[in-house]
């Protein structure tokens, strides 16, 4: 059981080593004078990350985004209930299916309420 998680741990170690090496390799190549260092504004621009922002980058975002995050959080907590049920689905049988239907229905009422109150629309 824990050996399976050991594989995940190994994966994390590989991830850390890979991302570190991606940063370190160019630095080493520059120190070894293999890569020439001729910086200019175009070369240093953040072209992979989209267009450079006009004005301040740290702007205050609309409060309405937070509502979607809250709604998502409720769905996420619902998944906490669904996940063990999905793991044990075959053994639990029909009764648990009805239980889960009632569970999802109760939470769905909240989303129907949100829909009817038109809070999911962007004005």
């Amino acid at each position, binding site marked *: *059981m*824990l050996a399976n*998680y*050991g594989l995940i*741990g190994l994966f994390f170690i590989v991830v850390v080593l890979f991302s570190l090496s991606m940063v370190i390799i160019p630095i080493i190549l520059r120190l070894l004078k293999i890569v020439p260092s001729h910086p200019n504004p175009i070369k240093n621009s953040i072209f992979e990350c989209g267009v450079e922002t006009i004005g*301040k980058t*740290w702007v*205050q*975002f*609309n*409060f*309405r*985004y*937070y*509502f979607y*995050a*809250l*709604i*998502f*959080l*409720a769905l*996420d*907590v*619902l*998944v*906490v*209930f669904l*996940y*063990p*049920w999905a*793991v*044990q689905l075959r*053994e*639990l049988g029909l*009764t*648990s299916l009805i*239980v*889960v239907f*009632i*569970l999802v229905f*109760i*939470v769905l*009422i*909240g*989303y129907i*309420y*949100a829909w009817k*109150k038109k*809070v999911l629309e962007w004005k």
Partner: protein
Amino acid sequence: MGLAITFWIMAVVAVVAALSVVFQRNVFRAALALILCFITVAGIYITLSADFLAAVQILVYVGAISVLIILAIMMTKEVQKGNLANKMEIPAAVVGTVLLIILVFTVTATSWNIAAESPLSPTTAPLATKLFSENGFILPVEIGAVLLLAAIIGAIVITREK
């Protein structure tokens, strides 16, 4: 042996990440350090054979709570100035110290009874049987759903613009 090494790596990373949450001036970096702290706590849960709790930790804390925190940072005014000290500095220090003393006292003064039975492994399937089988905790599960419903409606009522 391997388990102890894993635990210590996780524990050290978690404490360093938690300290960097407090000491970082940049609020956004502090939030990212907090996410790292959440992930290492999930790792500690795995070493304690609480695999379902680890999955929930990843799902809810790393997946959703961190989104809420980052969105809250996006909505903060003048966030680039960072984590500035204000006039609540001294009360916060007092409350923090008192809380630390209480926690340390509780942890050291409690006699921790360790169960002789070895933990179930994996825990997800027995938990599902407890929650969803015919003589399981069906009613509490449905009440949990009602609590979620209350949370959704509360969020709608609070955030709706008039």
